[in-house]
């Protein structure tokens, strides 16, 4: 058995997803599976057969940052960067469900993504900014 996270990072050299806790608590390894936010450290690769996986590498369009990435950049929503790919994918998942989320919905949408640098406020501001800008492709 292989974990999805290891297939992504070791076999496919897609190192955007990070290994943080390795037990589904921190969200650093988060990816989208058929559009749903999941922790790739807890997923046996075999269970992904036929599913569409989106990593942070798949979010930017060519050389242009995705609007959510641009908002994190502009609002200072990233410091060391370990949590950032998961934060951005969690934001993507959240904004698909709630285009104009309340602060409470933002906090819930990101509740499985831990950041030890920012204190979260700038991340929340980046998400709010992204919701204002709109994330339509």
């Amino acid at each position: 058995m292989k974990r999805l996270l290891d297939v992504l990072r070791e076999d496919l050299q897609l190192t955007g997803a990070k290994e943080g806790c390795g037990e589904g608590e921190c969200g650093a390894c988060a990816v989208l599976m058929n559009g749903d936010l999941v922790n790739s450290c807890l997923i046996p690769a075999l269970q992904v057969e036929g599913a569409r996986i989106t990593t942070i590498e798949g979010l930017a369009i060519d050389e242009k940052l995705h609007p959510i990435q641009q908002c994190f950049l502009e609002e200072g929503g990233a410091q060391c960067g370990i949590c950032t790919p998961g934060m951005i994918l969690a934001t993507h998942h959240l904004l698909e469900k709630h285009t104009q989320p309340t602060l409470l919905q933002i906090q819930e949408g990101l509740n499985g993504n831990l950041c030890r640098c920012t204190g979260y406020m700038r991340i929340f501001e980046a998400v709010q900014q992204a919701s204002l800008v709109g994330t339509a492709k």
Partner: protein
Amino acid sequence: MRSNATQYDLIAPNSLDAVLQILADSPDRYTPIAGGTELMVALGAGRLQSKKLVSLWNLDELRFIEVAPDAIIIGAGSTFTDIRKHPIIAEEFSILAEAASWTGSVANQNRGTLGGNIVNASPAADSPPVLLAYDARLTLISIRGTRTLPYRDFHLAYKETTLELDEILHSITISRNLIGYKPYIRKVGTRNAQAISKVAIAALARMNDAYIEDIRIGAASLREYPTRLTAAEQSLVGKTITPATIAAARAAVLTEARPIDDIRSTAKYRATVAANLLEEFLHTLE
């Protein structure tokens, strides 16, 4: 690579029948795995004994929510997100939707299943107190057929259940006949999101004028498995809500609770808070 996942073998048959055949025939014991939010953690930590796993993830036969006139039947492979999103559950089984909303993070709710939460048999799990309050029935399935039993009879001892080696949990059935019942649920943990409960109570009660006609109280982290607080229930049936009734119910909770001291809390705190939660519910019935 931190995990030792390569030491494990996983097979993913594409039908429930194929899974049941493997569980029945194989001389090796296979451990069923659905969303992996529990077993993959155990595996990574080297705590998963069985080296052979069979996947139940996304099997159509287990991932459904069926609304019948008198009951709702939830496939064991339904995720917490499936449960939160279901309009009838949100409307008629609000405390189940609420428990699902605080079972881990969004990412874990997208993978964790109701069946996994039950079969994993943690005394602290989030959905069991609700299922006890609703007096849910479980349907177990094997190559030999199906059998149903009340969920309250499923747990035998710490992490021990009535599930046979060749059986899996198929579905959870909850009666929709809840007219007049008032629900209550509260989880006490270190933080709102992603915390394992120190103690949790879910309850339903039906009043007849000022009298408690029926009350069912499910609890987490008070005994070695999720438990109904039957002594407290018995102390309350037929009573009005008075200081004496509340005192008797609190005393009953303290006699039947057998909490432990552990990393998350102390036995004393758990028992006291459980009594406080029950009292909070009783005040809403006045």
